[in-house]
């Protein structure tokens, strides 16, 4: 498949739910909400990310992998066997769905990098870095194999179909998670394929996105300097890797990372007090190539929280609501009300200002 596509302009729909107390809910809820926004997508991609779904394997990286054909599976498993302790491997359970006539081969693996350092190709890497290396290697070097997700106690379920079809196909009602994100896609200039459906994930970071990252080319080249390989033919992939780089590798908090990605305009920086001006100027200079241009609303999920944010001039919709210890974020208020008819509070987050929700301490681990 050619990797020369530059961008994806889309009018998608997204939804995220987080229970701050770590209470786990079935995938049926988020599917119901997402289906209300069916007309925001066109059946060429839908998907979900779920956190807390594999408590019995919570210490293992859960690899969800799609294969175009069995040869890709053989090659991938050979690599995994050499480098990982494979606690369990199995086909991802699916159900026959009328609208999904063809689908890739889908397997999941619960794995740990082998402790015998010598057996790893790059013995000095910490576990997380080694997993990132593995994901990049599989995606870029093994023809027809793509990693859907690679985090602990979480997973991505995605494909080509409408939200309800993908949910039934992956039997999402059987999973319980404390954070869910969902996405329905309307791809316009990159292919609607199984690997190109949202969410895009790496370790336990997951991204669903409505909009277009016009700065994809700059962001891609920047990420490539750090060893990320962009193989999934869609702009949203850069967002996932930018968060991995900024939050996990550089140690920024979510708020600072969002500020760097949707940085204030220079004219607004000029009006800031001196210390803030200096900080913003530094942030924009250091992360100039990470700045995301173009219209977007994005939900960024991770094992301890959920972040929603917009581009700087709010070119895509985002609504948030709370009810008790649950926080919802979606493209449309009605999607939230479909599963929460009387929220305590509903609001439209302002452009460039992230809504950051974290689990209560010790919950959801």
């Amino acid at each position: 498949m050619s990797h020369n596509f530059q961008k994806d302009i889309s009018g998608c729909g997204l939804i995220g739910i987080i229970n701050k107390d770590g209470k786990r809910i079935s995938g049926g809820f988020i599917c119901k909400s997402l289906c209300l926004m069916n007309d925001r997508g066109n059946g060429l991609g839908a998907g979900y990310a779920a956190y807390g779904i594999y408590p019995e394997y919570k210490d293992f990286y859960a690899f969800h992998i799609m294969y175009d054909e069995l040869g890709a599976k053989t090659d991938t498993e050979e690599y995994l066997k050499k480098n990982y302790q494979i606690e369990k491997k199995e086909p991802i359970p699916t159900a026959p769905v009328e609208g999904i006539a063809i689908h890739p081969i889908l397997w999941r693996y619960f794995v740990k990098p082998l402790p015998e350092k010598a057996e790893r190709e790059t013995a000095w890497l910490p576990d997380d870095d080694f997993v990132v290396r593995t994901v990049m290697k599989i995606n870029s070097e093994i023809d027809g194999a793509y990693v859907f997700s690679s985090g602990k106690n979480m997973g991505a379920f995605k494909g080509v179909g409408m939200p309800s079809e993908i949910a039934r196909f992956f039997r999402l009602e059987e999973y319980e998670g404390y954070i869910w994100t969902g996405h329905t896609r309307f791809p316009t200039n990159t292919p609607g394929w199984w690997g190109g459906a949202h969410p895009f994930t790496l370790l336990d970071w997951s991204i669903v996105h409505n909009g277009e990252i016009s700065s994809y080319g700059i962001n891609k080249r920047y990420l490539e300097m750090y060893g990320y390989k962009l193989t999934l033919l869609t702009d949203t992939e850069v967002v996932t890797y930018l968060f991995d780089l900024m939050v996990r590798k550089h140690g920024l908090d979510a708020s600072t990372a969002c500020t760097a990605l949707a940085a204030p305009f220079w004219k607004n920086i000029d009006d800031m007090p001196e210390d803030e001006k200096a900080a913003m100027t530094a942030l924009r200079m250091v992360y100039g190539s990470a700045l995301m241009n173009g219209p977007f609303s994005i939900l960024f999920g991770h094992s301890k929280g959920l972040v929603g944010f917009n581009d700087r001039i709010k070119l895509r919709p985002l609504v948030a609501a709370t009810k008790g210890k649950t926080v919802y974020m979606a493209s449309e208020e009605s999607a939230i009300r479909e599963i929460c008819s009387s929220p305590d509070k509903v609001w439209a987050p302002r452009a460039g200002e992230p809504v950051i929700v974290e689990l209560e301490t010790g919950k959801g681990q």
Partner: protein
Amino acid sequence: MLTIDAKGIYYRELNSKVRDAVSKGEKEILLKNVNGQYYIGDGLRGETTITIDGVPGNDLAAFMDGPTLIIKNNAQDNIGNTMNSGKVIIHGNAGDVLGYGMRGGKLHIRGDVGYRVGIHMKGYKKQNPVIIAGGKAGDFFGEYMAGGVLILLNLDGKKDDRPMVGDYLGTGMHGGIIFIRGDVDKKLCGAEVGITDLDNEDNKFLKEYLEDYCKDFNLKTEDIMRVGFKKLIPASLRPYGNLYAY
């Protein structure tokens, strides 16, 4: 009065029921349990009043020409696109891009409105679209405005620390009037926007608009008028006339 239960009904079916009822001369319609259905009231003509119970979906009242829509709750994005006449009354907040290219009729919103409200609004002779928002507004309020009236009231100003109106206020404006209740920071406006106090004529018009608004939400015009307004108008009819002249 005709009541239609919209629960779980796809927008196409719902809107075709509404159109049928209107074409049969129904003057009062209640839509119960609406949630997210798009395009309600689009292209509708006549004198019908449609009350909506629930949160209607995007693109409400586009190209609407006559009817009155009453929304008891919040409403979403893109309301009143190119609306020609009639009225939309929203008791909660409304989303982004309201009254885009609107050419007549009224949008009355009790709460906050989002980004890009009243952009490209236009007016001509008797056609004079009016948007009144009772809360705060986001960026690009009245951007590229060519006609009509935008009024922003900030009635619940103390409830949060957000400014009452966002950046790029009236940027590119070349017609119409924006009334803002309170002071306006010149920094938010484009170079083509002039900020002035109201004269007697302005006050007369404003009062007229507000009286109608207050009737819809059971408010008192005097209470609202107690705080001073600023008027924003295009400072020059052709602010960029010389841009490419040299």
